[in-house]
């Protein structure tokens, strides 16, 4: 479990040009949650990620991971529980061969060889990388490299997997497949996922959406709850998925579409229902 209470962080604390990246964030994430963290550049989401893995330490308030406070001295205990994947795999993959890189984290924990092998096997399978486990990282596509990075984080067997904009450099279809893989992993293994993104259509695929703006939590709820406040989202520099926007417009035209529209699939269902009922109404 992750608990943040009145969590604050500033760069260059106490100096004149201090930057207040987080200003009192309250957040509670239960084990196994599947969460999207969104916000435009500068909203504080990358700072939050760095706090979560104890690369930075709070300058105010409190952050606990499974009850362990994030502060100097506790880094290792925190990082055993939360693994992070950064935006550009080129800057975080270390070893030159896929399996070796996935093994890098477990090796640092000083685990037995059999245990490392089991974890690496598990992570490679979960991300569909078994076939290329002996390939060189440099020969892979950007999407594959990102999967290797995620497998490396997963092999740590963390409670939470934090993904810091892993999809921003990938084409939308590739990004979507990656998120579906994560969803599957979350369902099967119960690994909590915190996915940082600025794509709303990606956020729609998650159970819970946390919107950061100006270092504060602007919204926190299900995608449906969040997307309903489209004007506020736009103010925060974010987009509403077109499916949601379109449902709103159709609703404004008097079509009874309901609140459940989050993405293309749910819009399609709603419209199919509508069409069916109309066909009945006009039927023989």
């Amino acid at each position: 479990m992750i608990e943040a209470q009145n969590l604050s962080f500033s760069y260059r604390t106490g100096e004149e040009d201090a930057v207040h990246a987080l200003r009192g964030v309250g957040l509670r994430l239960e084990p196994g949650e599947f969460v999207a963290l969104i916000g435009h550049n500068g909203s504080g989401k990358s700072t939050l990620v760095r706090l979560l893995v104890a690369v930075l330490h709070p300058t105010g308030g409190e952050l606990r991971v499974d009850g362990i406070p994030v502060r100097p001295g506790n880094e290792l205990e925190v990082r055993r529980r939360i693994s992070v994947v950064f935006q550009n795999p080129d800057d975080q993959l270390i070893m030159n061969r896929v399996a070796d890189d996935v093994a890098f984290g477990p090796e640092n924990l000083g685990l037995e060889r059999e245990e490392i092998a089991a974890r690496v096997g598990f992570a490679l399978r979960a991300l569909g990388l078994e076939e290329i486990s002996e390939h060189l990282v440099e020969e892979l596509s950007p999407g594959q490299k990102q999967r290797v990075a995620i497998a490396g984080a997963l092999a740590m067997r963390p409670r939470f997997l934090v993904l810091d904009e892993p999809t921003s450099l990938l084409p939308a279809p590739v990004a979507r497949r990656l998120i579906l893989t994560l969803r599957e992993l979350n369902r099967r293994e119960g690994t909590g996922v915190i996915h940082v993104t600025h794509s709303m259509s990606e956020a729609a695929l998650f159970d819970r959406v946390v919107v950061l703006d100006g270092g504060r939590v602007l919204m926190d709820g299900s995608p449906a709850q969040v997307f309903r406040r489209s004007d506020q989202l736009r103010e925060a520099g974010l987009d509403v998925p077109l499916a949601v926007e379109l449902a709103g417009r159709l609703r404004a035209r008097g079509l009874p579409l309901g609140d459940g529209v989050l993405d293309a699939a749910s819009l399609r269902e709603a419209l199919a229902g509508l069409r069916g009922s109309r066909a009945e109404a006009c039927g023989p």
Partner: protein
Amino acid sequence: MLELQRNVIFGQFVDTGSVVHRMDPRIKLGAAFVLVVASFLVDTFLGFAILGLLAAAIQAVSRVPPGYLLRGSALFLGFLLFILAFQVLFYAGEVPEGGYLWRWGILSVSTAGLESAAILGLRVILLYYVTTMLMLTTSLVDLTAGLEQIFSPLQRLRVPVNELVLVFVIAVKFVPIFIEEIERLARARTARGVPFDEGGALTRARRIGRLLVPIFVGGFARADVLTTAMQVRCYRGGRHRTRLRQLAAAPSDWAALLAVVAWAVAAWWVSGAL
């Protein structure tokens, strides 16, 4: 044009799947070490002839086409001839009576000079052959794994073996990334009218310097991310690490190493005894 990778000979490992390729990298490194030492100790033609036979045997077993080996060595051979010419002309050792074939001031050509230059040439060719064959038959990944495991006992003496190998691993990892980056840089700048490969030496040095600034600045930024990435993956130095990949030397590998040692000792012994 601007295909910088074209020139890259780094890590060009030709996988013929031969016995030599499949050999444990530690054994290959050990054998290479033995041959490097032998090249220093042996100083007769007969000794080098014996080592040459061994090289020929390795060549045959490895199935690396000799043409491939020779193709990259033109420049090396040119430099070698240059150095050997100097060795002969400036030979400063003892020259027996009547040993001079030609003499002019401090320059001379003597049989003793020719002989010593030839031995030096053979020695350097052997060294060249050993490293080149090592690189042609061993992937960089295997090479680094081998290096780490050979030296891992030193870790107990507080020599940071794992760390040193990791420096090399990171260097190797970034080479293709940087090549791609610098190709892009060179292209974009050429399109703006700043080709890096024109002009006099100083202009070029300045332009290459400016071309390298983003590589260095970007490199330091990448270093920050990678440092963080390693820390969040719980890296705390080599002492705490266990390893997944284990190298296994087959009995035949050991036999091969033993054969190389025996052969090298024989070459040395023949050299010394005669």
